Every structure is written in C-alpha cells, then in structure tokens.
C-alpha cells in the first residue's frame, strides 16, 4: 500500500471514530430529561432578571474590588520584594509564598470564620466582605509575582538612563520602570482577572444575604428551590459570556506584544 493511501485511510478511520462517538452519545442521552432538567424554559423565566441584577452584578463587583485591591497591594509587595532592604524582601516573600501556597477556599473560610473569632474583628461588609477581603489578599500574592517579573523584564539600561539624568530611585521607579512593567504584564494581568472571576464562585461557602449573592450562590439557591439543574446551565453561560471575550482579548494582546518585539 502506498504511504499516501495509508495516511488517508488512517485519517478516515479517525473521523469515523469521532462521528461514531457523537452518534452513540446522542442515542443514549435522554433528551427529554435533559430538556426538562437542564434547559427548562419555565425555570429560566423564573431566574430572569435576578440572574443579571443580582448574580452577574455581584460577581462583577466582587471581582473588580478583589482585583483593584489585590493590584494596589501587589504593587507594594512587588516593590518590597525588589527592595534593597532585606526584611522587606522577607516579608513580601513570606506573604506571597503563604497565600499562593494555600487554596483560595481555605483563605476564604479563614477570613469568614476564623479571623473574626481570633481577632474579635469583623471585616466590613459582613461575611461577604470577609470573603472579598480574602480574595484581595490571595490575588495580591499572584499579581505581585506577575508584577515583579514585569519590573525585572524592563531592561536595566532604562534604570541607568534615568539615574544618569539625575532622577532619584523613586522617581525612576514610578515614571520610567513601572509604566513599562505594566505594559509587559497586561496580558498576564488580564489572565489573573479571569481567574479571579471564577474564584468569586468560592464565596458561596460563606453564605450571603439574598441581594449579596454572586452567580454561583445565586444558581445554587435556585437549584435547591426549583429542584432543577437549569440554573447551573444559566450560570455557566453567564460565566462564559464574561470570560470568553476576556480570554480572546488576552490572546490578541499577546500576539500584538509578540509583534512589537
């Protein structure tokens, strides 16, 4: 048999296996049960418009707060990590390694339940506030590492040129190094943002008032209420509508940066 013929045969076989699997799945799936349990129009109608005005809205708000707070904290941590003063470096390293090493869920539980007892201090915003604070801290650890890498990716000559003009070290950092570092890390930072969107779903473990629920808590409550899985599908679709454009954006930014180099 000729090599090209054999290659065509193998390829045809691979397609046949794929089509077979799809047909088999379609045949054994209980379409009526799926329609009723996952795609019930009636339940969807019940979820509207709260899925948007409560679920999506709170998910976006919590993500933005956690990201903004995490970013602010991360700038300080990254600068500490690159500081010539050793104790600052130690503190930043300990913070980053500690909170990157723990599952976000554990940190959320700690802030929701352990911290209020241990320090008899209630974070603002009740248990949701505590959960969002936990996300701020977790994201600060990840973003700090990203920023540090970005700062170190700025060529040393930039620092030297600024210093040779008489700029102080602080002025050089804020006017010359950080603006360039941020450009470098925009794609990975967008990625952190997407991860954070998904991490807000972990907040469901600490409970929330009716109008404080984010998307996952909202859909889980509806799941119990209607004894139907349609809310899960709705939540999944809502997450994808938010995250897919962002991940596409990251891919585009990365391509553009590759070209600029």
């Amino acid at each position, binding site marked *: 048999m000729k090599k090209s013929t054999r290659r065509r045969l193998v390829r045809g076989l691979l397609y046949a296996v794929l089509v077979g699997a799809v047909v088999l799945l379609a045949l054994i799936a209980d379409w009526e049960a799926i329609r009723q349990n996952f795609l019930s129009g009636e339940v969807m109608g019940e979820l509207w418009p709260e899925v948007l005005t409560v679920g999506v809205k709170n998910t976006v708000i919590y993500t933005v707060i956690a990201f903004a707070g995490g970013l602010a904290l991360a700038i300080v941590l990254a600068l500490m990590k690159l500081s010539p003063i050793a104790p600052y470096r130690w503190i930043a390293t300990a913070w980053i390694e500690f909170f990157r090493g723990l599952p976000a869920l554990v940190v959320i539980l700690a802030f929701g339940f352990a911290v209020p007892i241990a320090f008899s201090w209630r974070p603002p915003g009740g248990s949701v506030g505590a959960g969002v604070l936990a996300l701020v801290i977790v994201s600060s650890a990840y973003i700090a590492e990203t920023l540090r890498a970005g700062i170190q990716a700025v*060529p040393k*000559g*930039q620092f*030297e*040129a*600024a*210093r*040779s*003009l*008489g*700029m*102080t070290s602080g*002025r050089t950092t804020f*006017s*010359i190094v950080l*603006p*360039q570092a941020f*450009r470098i890390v925009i794609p990975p930072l967008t990625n952190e943002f997407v991860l954070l969107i998904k991490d807000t779903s972990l907040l469901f473990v600490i409970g929330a008032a009716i109008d404080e629920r984010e998307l996952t808590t909202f859909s889980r409550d509806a799941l119990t209420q209607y004894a139907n899985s349609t809310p899960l599908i709705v939540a999944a679709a809502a997450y994808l509508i938010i995250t897919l454009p962002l991940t596409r954006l990251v891919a585009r930014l990365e391509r553009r940066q590759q070209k*600029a180099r």
Partner: protein
Amino acid sequence: MTRVTSTLPAGTRAIEVRDLHKYFGDNEVLKGIDFHVDQGQVVCVIGPSGSGKSTLLRCVNRLEEPTSGTILVEGVDICDPEVDLDEIRSRIGMVFQSFNLFPHLSVMRNLTIAQQRVRRRSKDEAVEIARNNLAKVGLAGKEDAYPAHLSGGQQQRVAIARALSMDPDMMLFDEPTSALDPELVGDVLGVMRDLAADGMTMMVVTHEMGFAREVGDKLVFMDGGVIVEEGDPREVLANPQHSRTQGFLSKVL
C-alpha cells in the same frame, strides 16, 4: 550655537580618577587607574573588549560602584556619602551604546521629563530647550514620534539631545556608535564633532579611530584593566610605543 559654559576656569580637571580598582566578584576589571579629563578636553578611550574601558566610564557617574580609589568630578569626591549623587549626575550627560530612550514616552517627553522633575524647569521652558537641542542634532520635527519609530542613528541623536537638555558640564559616551548600522554612524559622529567644537568636555569610549584622531585631544589605550598608553591621538595612532597598543591597532586600523 551657544557655547557651553562652566563655572570652572578652563584647564581645571573635569574628571580626575586616582588609583581606581574595580572588582566584579573575584575578577579585577580595573587594576589601579589614574586618569583625568581637563575642562573642555575631548578624551577618547580605546581598547579591546573586556579591557575595562566601559567600566571606567561608568564609574565616573557611579553607575558602577568603585571598589577602591578616588573619583573627583569638578573637584568633588563622588564617593563621599555626604555628596548629592543625583545632583552630580544631572550635570554629567551620558550616552549609552544601546541608546536607552524611554520607549513609553514621546521624543519630546524623553527630553523634558528630567528637566522638569530634576531641574524643576517649567514645562514651557523645558519644551523650548528640548526643541533647541532637537534642532541641534538635526531632528527638529520629530517631537511627537516614539523611539520605536526612529532609526538607530536618530534614536542615538535623540539620546544626545536628551542629555544636552540638562545643560551638562560634561558628556560621557559609552560606545555611542557600536550598535548602529554603518551608514548611520556618520550622523551621530557629526553631532559629537559639533559638540566638541562647541567646547564640551567629553569622555568617549569608542572604536572610531578616525573620530579619535580628528576630534580627540587625548587618546587612552586600555588593556587588561590598566592604561597601557596615552597621549596625543595622532601621535599614539601613528606611532604606538607599547607592543600591546601596536598589536591592537594593527588589528583595527
């Protein structure tokens, strides 16, 4: 063109280096350098790569920390912990091999940021000075361009204009044409020639023997971390005394 003015009388040592040693780890790259540049002088430093010539130049504004020895800039010991290093650096223009323009800022902003932040000049004054210096290096009209859109030769001339905008008392050039395509070298050397004719004090680490011969007041040949030979450029280039100088020049000329 305005004449570069200095508070010090001509003949005063702009740069004086005494018994300078510099180690990178265990590697001694400068082994006791005595060196000076007089006010208004153009001193060219040549030598094979790894000879320590760039390190010497970078010690003059303490981008490299000397291990031991004394460096006086206009009579001030720059290693004295009491000294305001930023103020001294702002009076020493530096031009790098790799230009080091700020890529996120326009040409105009590259030229004004240190004037405003370090010299505390008003924006209008800084812009006017920047325009004059851009014209001086032949790049009037490029104010709004970004460094990435300029050729290497243009970037290096902007870098020179950026340094000049601080009204420096002296200029350090660290292989300013080594990263340029051959056809762009002439423009940059032309600007440097004009500066020298203007009376600017210059220390130039370079491989451009023609420039050293025509513009330099003194030529210093370094090898292996020491100054092997120095003197009048025409003299040294035509009639090198030391065998290492002869060997180096026979390869590059």
